[in-house]
């Protein structure tokens, strides 16, 4: 870390309250609260969807009504009144934009505060293309033209349904079916928008694709649906960043992400999640209940998940990989930081089906205050997965004597040529390490930040450059006030 970085850190440490707690006053088009078939029809009609998609949604809704809320998770399931949520919110003036000047200036300033100034990025000549999701409707997709040249489709889900219905129909729900779990069913029924990416055969996506999610309107759940398809020999790196303004009422976020990697394809999916975690007493905050799953469908394909989770009152997700193709590779790198009364129950699933498949899991949990942080993971080797290989490491760091760190790994092997390793450690930050840094004139808070960053390095290294810096800052900000 160089000097300027340190200064930025210091500055940000001084800010006590949740950094991204502001709201944007834009007229919203909010549907009345409640979940019903009519609501699903309303959303579908609003989005001008074809008949088959409406049927698909209705089927999901019926599943949702039949399902019961799970009880196995390691936190108390909050009482969510599904009838008290508005399932559709869109900025009233759907901006028809060709250049950034036409975008509502207030919206732009929101993004500026978030640290993704669209203008600047446009000037910076296409390092990152951002499909900014403002509540439910994708407002602005940058660099689409440029991507179009190489044949990459990167658009909002709604547009994809209109323009590429065949692709959507073929892959929607193929990785996460409507019946997968109760929140996946809910999402399938009421999802409002999301991102769609298709990388054609042999194309190496020329830039990092990125989407910022934000929850803005009160009492609107956000139900995103992301579908990424990498055709034979394609490569894409996708970034998802999340911040949400401060709200006192709990808000539900139940997204679904589906990744499909065909032969020799590679998908890298990175997330930095910093939604409002609730205040010091655990009031408010986002419920982040997300289903993320990828399938390595073709031989020699690869899917890699990287996540930095610092926000949300409850984080509950298991980005998984189904290793179906022979020689396919799945990776999962995670840092989850919880403080105050936050809860995180996160981990991954690696389902080995193909021969010579490999997976690697690195999970780093940090819990402070009264928070609880759980790693829950599954490594499953099916009888046909000859010579499968897995390495799992999940470490936990505890700060304070009233927090908890928990590990629930499931290791299931039904093939005698599999080689698996799993290791986990739990400890607190070494007093000798802090003492060493204190001696050298670094105060305790900064010392902890330094140690945490070193501890999480293995995961942060996996993030693309811009995100790595942001994630590093985020970890330090999140920990302020937890030490000493």
């Amino acid at each position, binding site marked *: 870390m160089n000097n300027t970085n340190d200064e930025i850190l210091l500055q940000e440490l001084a800010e006590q309250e949740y950094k991204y707690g502001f709201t944007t006053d834009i007229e919203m088009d909010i549907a009345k609260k409640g979940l019903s078939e009519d609501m699903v029809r309303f959303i579908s009609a609003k989005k001008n969807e074809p008949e088959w998609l409406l049927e698909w949604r209705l089927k999901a809704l019926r599943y949702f009504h039949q399902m019961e809320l799970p009880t196995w998770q390691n936190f108390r399931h909050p009482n969510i009144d599904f009838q008290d949520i508005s399932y559709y919110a869109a900025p009233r003036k759907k901006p028809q934009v060709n250049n950034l000047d036409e975008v509502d200036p207030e919206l732009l300033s929101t993004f500026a505060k978030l640290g993704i100034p669209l203008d600047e990025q446009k000037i910076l000549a296409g390092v990152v293309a951002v499909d900014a999701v403002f509540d439910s409707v994708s407002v602005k997709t940058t660099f689409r033209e440029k991507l179009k040249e190489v044949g990459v489709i990167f658009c909002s889900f709604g547009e994809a349904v209109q323009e590429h219905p065949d692709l959507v129909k073929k892959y929607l729900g193929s990785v996460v079916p409507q019946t997968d779990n109760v929140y996946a069913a809910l999402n399938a029924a009421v999802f409002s928008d999301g991102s769609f990416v298709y990388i054609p055969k042999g194309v190496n996506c020329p830039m990092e694709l990125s989407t910022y999610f934000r929850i803005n309107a009160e009492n609107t759940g956000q139900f995103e649906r992301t579908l990424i398809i990498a055709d034979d020999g394609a490569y894409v790196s996708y970034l998802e960043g999340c911040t949400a303004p401060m709200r006192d009422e709990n808000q539900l976020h139940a997204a679904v992400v589906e990744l499909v990697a065909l032969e020799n394809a590679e998908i890298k999916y990175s997330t930095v999640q910093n939604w409002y975690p609730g205040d010091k007493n655990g009031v408010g905050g986002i419920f982040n209940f997300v289903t993320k799953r990828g399938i390595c469908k073709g031989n020699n394909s690869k899917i890699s998940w990287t996540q930095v989770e610092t926000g949300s009152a409850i984080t509950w997700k298991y980005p998984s990989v189904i290793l179906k193709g022979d020689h396919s590779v799945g990776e999962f790198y995670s840092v989850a930081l919880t403080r105050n009364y936050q809860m995180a129950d996160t981990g991954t699933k690696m389902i080995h089906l193909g021969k010579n498949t490999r997976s690697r899991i690195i999970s780093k949990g940090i819990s402070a205050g009264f928070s609880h942080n759980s790693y829950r993971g599954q490594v499953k080797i099916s009888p046909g997965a000859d010579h499968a290989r897995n390495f799992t490491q999940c470490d936990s760091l505890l700060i304070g004597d009233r927090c*908890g760190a928990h590990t629930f*790994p499931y*290791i299931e092997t*039904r093939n*005698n040529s599999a080689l698996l390793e*799993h290791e*986990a450690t739990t400890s607190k930050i070494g007093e000798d390490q802090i003492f060493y840094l204190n001696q050298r004139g670094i105060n305790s808070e900064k010392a902890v930040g330094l140690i945490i960053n070193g501890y999480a390095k293995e995961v942060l290294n996996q993030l693309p450059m811009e995100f790595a810096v942001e994630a590093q800052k985020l970890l330090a900000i999140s920990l302020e006030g937890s030490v000493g």
Partner: protein
Amino acid sequence: MITQLTTSLYNQLVMAAPDCLQPGQEPKTFTDIRSQSFRKFKQLGFPTMKLEDWKYINLQGLVNQSYSLEDSLPGRPVAHERAHIPGLASYHLVMVNGAFRPDLSDSIEDSGITVMPMAEALDELLFAKHFAAYADKTDNPFVALNTALFQNGLFISFDKGSVAAKAIHIIHVVAGSESLFSQTRNLIVMGPNSSADIVETFITEQGAGKSLNNLVSEVVLEESARMQHYILQTASSQSSYLTHTEIHQSKYSLYNNYNCTFPGASFVRNNINVRLAEADVEGHLYGITLTADDQLVDNHTIVDHLKPHCESYEWYKNIVQDASTAVFNGKIFVREDAQKTNAFQQNNNMLIGDKSTVYSKPQLEIFADDVKCSHGCTIGQFNEQSLFYLRARGIGEEQARILLVHAFAFDVTSRFSNEAVKNYVERLVEEGL
């Protein structure tokens, strides 16, 4: 599924329960505990695979048949020499179908050690203090069932400072050609500063019928007590076992559990829970599981750190052959007050059979920050290079494999403090391959 259950063991037990739970025959407090437990069992029923703790075990085949609930020939002569451990100086205590048989057992001359059948212990002070005080706090339906309806078992108590000069060898024999559901309940109370080696061996008499055995043991270690507890499962395939061992430790005490399962018994489920209930306690669990054919062996352990400055060490090795299945579920809890805890857990698996399966769930739940906890789990098979190395030096393949398995098990066998038991276990491992 439910309708099938009601026509089988469950139904039998419900029919038999009123006789057992009739007031008057036993002290009232005791009958109350039994009735309460039976209500609990009825409420829970036999576990299904939907329950997390029973996820990998299908009990339906076992409980969906009728058993005889009582031994028809209680005094039958039984040979138990097969269970004897060469070179081990020991007192033999023989249990046939759950019932203690003084006529086949040695009497213990060491002062301060009391052995009696459970039925005679109901008036003992220690019984009232400790019975059903630990195991019944769990939600294992088989413990509730055992508490409600057991008729047999052993009560062993060690007075303050008493030391067993020889190992106490409890031999559990299943005998008789009828299919039997037997329940055994043991209570072992180690007084302050007492010390003992306890070996439990499970065997099946030749020609014995199918049996399902539900054993619950509560072990209490008072201040500075020391106990080495060896469990050797060597029964044959017609026998199935559900065991629950609950250990409660007080200050400065030491408990070592060595849990060894060998090819034979078609179904074994062991629950071993150690509660480190006071400060400065050591409790260690070691296990070797060698399975063959279509055996299913499931070891569920809990190490529960309740107070500071305790240490636990757990190491389970599974060697899985043929179409057998091994399950390991190890939980370590470190409660809020249990600062300065050292807890270590490791599970290593060697998958040898083409159709063998391993399910492992090493689990940590930690609520205190000043602790050192780790767990590890590996799954692998014979190292081809090691095999080649040995064969290049003129060692036959079979011998080489035995050598490698020995080496694999060595981490655990080397912890055995009793030399005779250690040699015996190493021999059984060799024979089981």
